[in-house]
């Protein structure tokens, strides 16, 4: 597939890049710190929400209600006096206090009984999570009381061997993000640096064609990025106990394809930018939106509707989704074909753009 010229050039560039070991490993510093911090910050299960209950009613229904909440692992319930619980709420020891009215049961079936929810304004962000659960609990009490069978029930079955921690969700995205950054910087900054030094011009004196030059740089840099990512993956698996459920080779294939795509994009940026400052700015324009829109830190599905179609089409989305499905759900290459197709399309676009934009005459002078 590669010509002898491309192979020879690749090996020379590999040697050139590999000499710069200090920066190769220094650029891993940030991702390693990042991963470590995230894995420690999220190592525990989700803490239960502290809820205080003031039961002003002596009815069985009220006790039932309190017991149901106590039984729910999501809540850490304290039953007590209103005055004391309010104090605890202000001190931040309780997230909310529920006050069950005296007539908690007598009204059932006739009028609506009102539960007073006292919350600290600082904790309102938790309300969105708590309210549905409260309503759910109330609804099941009501059904019991009125003797209605629920029309629907949801049985949740855990298909994954072990519960997924946030860091497990995060890692493939973080890897994808890191490979994007290393790749774009790896080719883009190199080009600008070579241009500044006049090296590109010297190369342009020879009959080398842009296609061969780009291929050689991309392959050599890819090898370096793979070494860097392997160090990160080893670090994650061995020291942070992160599991890659799916096939390791499939995972690497996605990594390789993603790296090539971003290296070509780095080449495009390097051809457009004349200075290191310009490439820094251009790089941010490409990198920043993808950090937030490519489902690295939270799933794309949790973003505003209108932005989702765009977000799904970003190159980093395809790469991180593919990696995540393999790492977390054990998907096979066949199963992640939408991601693979997306990556291939981006590869073609990026490679063609790189060869079109990289004109010796303009880039070298």
């Amino acid at each position, binding site marked *: 597939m590669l010509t*002898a*010229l491309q192979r*020879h*050039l690749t090996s*020379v560039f590999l*040697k*050139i890049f590999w*000499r*710069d070991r200090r920066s190769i490993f220094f650029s891993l510093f940030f991702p390693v710190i990042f991963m470590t911090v995230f894995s420690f910050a999220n190592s525990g299960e989700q803490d239960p929400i502290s809820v205080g209950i003031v039961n002003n009613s002596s009815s069985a229904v009220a006790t039932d209600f309190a017991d149901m909440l106590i039984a729910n692992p999501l809540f850490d319930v304290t039953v007590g006096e209103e005055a004391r619980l309010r104090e605890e709420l202000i001190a931040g020891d309780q997230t909310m206090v529920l006050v069950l009215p005296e007539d908690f049961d007598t009204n059932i079936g006739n009028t609506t009984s009102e539960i007073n929810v006292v919350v600290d304004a600082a904790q309102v962000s938790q309300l969105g999570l708590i309210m549905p659960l409260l309503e759910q609990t109330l609804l099941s009490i009501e059904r019991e009381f009125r003797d209605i069978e629920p029309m629907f029930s949801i049985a949740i079955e855990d298909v994954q061997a072990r519960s997924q921690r946030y860091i497990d969700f995060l890692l493939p995205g973080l890897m994808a993000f890191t490979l994007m950054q290393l790749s774009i910087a790896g080719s883009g900054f190199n080009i600008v640096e*070579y241009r500044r*030094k*006049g*090296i590109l*011009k*010297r*190369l*342009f*004196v*020879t*009959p*080398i*064609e842009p296609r061969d030059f780009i291929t050689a740089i991309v392959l050599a840099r890819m090898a370096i990025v793979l070494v860097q990512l392997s160090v990160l993956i080893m670090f994650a698996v061995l020291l942070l106990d992160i599991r890659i459920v799916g096939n390791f080779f499939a995972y690497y294939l996605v990594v390789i394809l993603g790296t090539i795509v971003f290296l070509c994009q780095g080449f495009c940026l390097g051809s457009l930018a004349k200075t290191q400052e310009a490439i820094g700015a251009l790089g941010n324009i490409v990198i920043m939106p993808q950090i937030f829109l490519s489902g690295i830190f939270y799933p794309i599905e949790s973003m505003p509707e209108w932005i989702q179609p765009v977000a799904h089409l970003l190159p980093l989305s395809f790469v991180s989704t593919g990696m995540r499905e393999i790492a977390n759900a054990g998907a096979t290459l066949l199963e992640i074909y939408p991601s693979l197709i997306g990556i291939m399309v981006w590869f073609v676009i990026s490679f063609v753009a790189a060869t079109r934009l990289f004109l010796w*005459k303009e880039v*070298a*002078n």
Partner: protein
Amino acid sequence: MPIIEVSDLAKQYPLPDNKSEKFFAVNGVSLAIEAGEIFGILGPNGAGKTTTLEMMEGLNDIDGGTALIDGISVNDNPYKVKEVIGVQLQANEYFDNINLEELLSLFAALYNNNADPIALLKKVQLEEKAKAKPNNLSGGQKQRFSIACALVNEPKVLFLDEPTTGLDPQAKRNLWDLVRKLNKAGMTIVLTTHNMEEAEELCDRIAIMDKGKIIAEGTPQELILEYAPEPPEAPLHGDLEDVFLVLTGHELRE
């Protein structure tokens, strides 16, 4: 038939203070250089020497005119021309962290041949520096090394842009010897220089450029006879450079 035929070559650049206006950096240059010649281009800074060379080398777009090297049109076939020429640029930088031997094998790769790096380094007397990095070379060594790089493809025509600028007299003479040796072996050489002695010593023919145009052309003798003012009655013997050389010797300094 001349190995290099340039006619009416022109290059326009935007004016530095008014980007919408253009000026001719090279304005109708025509040259015919015979195979086996050492041809010198002289001229003050900004005359358009480098630009002219770069158009002939296929590094710069030709805005007007034609250039033919060894029968190949630079306008139509720049990549083909690059296979038969060797180029030393006015400013030379190389990748920092690989040594001379490796750099030469990189250039061999770029030309897709198997040139022997050590043999090339021997040609320019740098074989002892095979493992040195380009940044650790002296100015003269750097110039010789960039000539070695230019020889990787055994070119028919060698372009040297100010090869001796910044060199001490020993290094300069050493480089002249190298140029003569290459020329004896049959290579056509086109060089630019600001050093009149160099032009007189080394070049078979000279063109003098100013403001993008060639204002005089001929052998050094012809030009001196035609343009030089009469010498004073009792001329001095030699010049300061001779004094320097007598005092410091002809040995090449490393």
